[in-house]
């Protein structure tokens, strides 16, 4: 390994990257886009569901109850209907998300407490609406005296989100998702490109070793990965007020280890792929289970044992434990050592397999 040759390859790679406008845009564009998408659009706090209200009671108390429900911001009263039958028609049309029926004997039901006082009619096919309905059911049914004082603010209803605010949990996870998504693909493609474009045939006839070539092509991506981490952290702070409760140094160290794991995976894929397109397909193939099973999309604890076992093999699972621990719970790297060790083992394993498959020849 010669430093000068390695440097020459790094320099060449950076020059090519600078001229590859699309890839360059993706490096910054993907983090920004994903952060905004996951932060705003894919918000697990369902709010402002459009409701049609049937108030058959028409008492001061019933009107107050509706106003209180509306104050939670979970529902907006979009329409009023005279009978429960009209609710169904509106639901079927998709005009509203749910119906709220307050029967004529509301006062009696509330006082006797033997039957549900308020009926919610929801589109059960939509899990988001169902989740919201569950929240509304836990809405404290008022007693005769002073029930309005005990109405909880909407935040407390958020029982599927232990950290309470979605972006708080999503942004740390996004660091991992973005790094996996971009780095694995970029490395695999960059390494295969040399072969597909015929440059490798020229390079093989020079004193460059496979290690110099691989490292030289991959090193720029370590820097790029750290830039992406910074972008997500900065934007997460500005847009969603996501704090870093633990040590920032620990956070970058954990990210660095995860970046190395992703690059190792990319290098391994490049030894399998015959074309840049294949490399991309393989990268997507490894990306999907990571995003679905790592605990980023669905709570890890809720998955069946087999899926959990498989998820333990994925680097993103371990990185999520590291990054959430450091950012949200002020944990130190030392406390989280099993996840760190898992990432190190994964990296070593991938590189080992890749090296055994790499050789500086065409056949």
């Amino acid at each position: 390994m010669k430093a000068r040759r390695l440097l020459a390859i790094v320099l060449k790679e950076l020059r090519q990257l600078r001229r590859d406008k699309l890839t360059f845009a993706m490096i910054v564009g993907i983090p920004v886009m994903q952060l905004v998408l996951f932060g705003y659009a894919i918000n697990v706090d369902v709010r402002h569901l459009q409701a049609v209200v049937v108030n058959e009671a028409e008492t001061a108390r019933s009107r107050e109850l509706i106003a209180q429900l509306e104050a939670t911001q979970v529902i907006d009263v979009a329409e009023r209907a005279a009978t429960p039958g009209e609710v169904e028609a509106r639901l079927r049309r998709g005009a509203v998300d749910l119906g709220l029926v307050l029967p004529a004997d509301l006062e009696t039901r509330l006082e006797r407490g033997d039957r549900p006082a308020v009926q919610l009619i929801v589109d059960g096919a939509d899990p988001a609406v169902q989740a919201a309905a569950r929240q509304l059911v836990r809405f404290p049914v008022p007693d005769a005296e002073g029930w309005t004082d005990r109405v909880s603010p909407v935040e407390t209803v958020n029982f599927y989100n232990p950290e309470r605010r979605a972006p708080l949990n999503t942004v740390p996870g996004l660091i991992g998702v973005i790094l996996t998504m971009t780095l694995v693909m970029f490395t695999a493609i960059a390494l295969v490109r040399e072969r597909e474009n015929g440059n490798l045939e020229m390079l093989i006839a020079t004193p460059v070793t496979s290690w110099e070539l691989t490292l030289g092509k991959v090193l720029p991506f370590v820097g790029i990965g750290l830039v992406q981490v910074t972008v997500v952290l900065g934007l997460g702070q500005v847009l969603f007020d996501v704090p870093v409760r633990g040590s920032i140094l620990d956070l970058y160290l954990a990210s660095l280890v995860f970046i190395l794991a992703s690059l190792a995976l990319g290098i391994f894929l490049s030894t399998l792929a015959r074309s840049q397109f294949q490399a991309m397909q393989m990268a997507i193939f490894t990306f999907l289970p990571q995003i679905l099973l790592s605990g980023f999309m669905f709570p890890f604890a809720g998955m069946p044992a087999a899926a959990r076992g498989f998820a333990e093999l994925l680097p993103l699972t371990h990185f999520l434990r590291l990054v959430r621990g450091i950012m949200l719970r002020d944990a130190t790297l030392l406390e989280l050592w099993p996840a760190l060790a898992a990432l190190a083992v994964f990296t070593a394993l991938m590189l080992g397999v890749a090296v055994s498959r790499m050789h500086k020849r065409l056949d």
Partner: protein
Amino acid sequence: MTASAEPTVIRTRGLSKRFGDTLAVDSLELAVARGEVYGFLGPNGSGKSTTLRMLCGLLRPSAGEIEVLGHRLPGEAEALKRRLGYMTQSFSLYRDLSVAENLAFLAAVHELPRREAHKRREALLARYRLERFRHRLAGTLSGGERQRLALAGAVLHRPDLLLLDEPTSAVDPQSRRDFWESLFELADAGTSVLVSTHYMDEAERCTRLAILDRGRLVADDTPRALMAALPGRPLRVEVERPRAARRLLEGTRGVREVAQIGAALRLLVDDDASPEAIAARLHEAGVEARVTPEAPTLEDVFVAATRRRREATA
């Protein structure tokens, strides 16, 4: 071991390469002397590229021995690479780097001392008329310019041996002439050159020539000796209706090869067949023709060499 101590820069014994069921190179015996511009002539698929790739360590032979510049392959490939220049068939420098950046990259890869790298780069840019294109991306150059850049890249580290795989396949005739001038210039300076081609005029310029056909060496000598040793003699037949005459001659005893060249026919006949005999044969069939002897060309040699093998295996 140094290059000057070896009269032979390339030697192969029983060199073979098999891809699946196909034998791309079949027990090749090759000896290339120092300072030669040695040509590899053969049709597409004759094993030229595969042989070149084995000679520079890109492919491992299935069988046989290779010794290049005193290094045995594939074992000593890395030591050889410092003394070897290789120009690939298709342009293999970086299209998204400029001319100067490509050369700078290669200089660093070959670990040329920085001062020397700079001087060498400027000298090559001047020699190969690339100064104007210094900052142009290699991908935007024309075929001839790209080829000059590729040659500059291949000789940057002053190799003792230069291997070129059909270097002129994508360039115009004028660029081809210039290119061959550069090759002789390099040979004069002591570089041994091995170049593959399928152009006859290029093959004729080589100091020595190997003809390959379906992986086998079917001829190996100087172009002049090959032409002198041509079995049979070429004749020129000037005739009113060449296509009819051709049909007539194709079945005739003693006629090995008939080809139409413009309005005339060119024959390759057995040594004992005279022009008069051919004219008489045509006369019998009612065709009047003027038959004259011609000088053998390399194309005759090539056709004869590849045809003999085809007949032997058929």
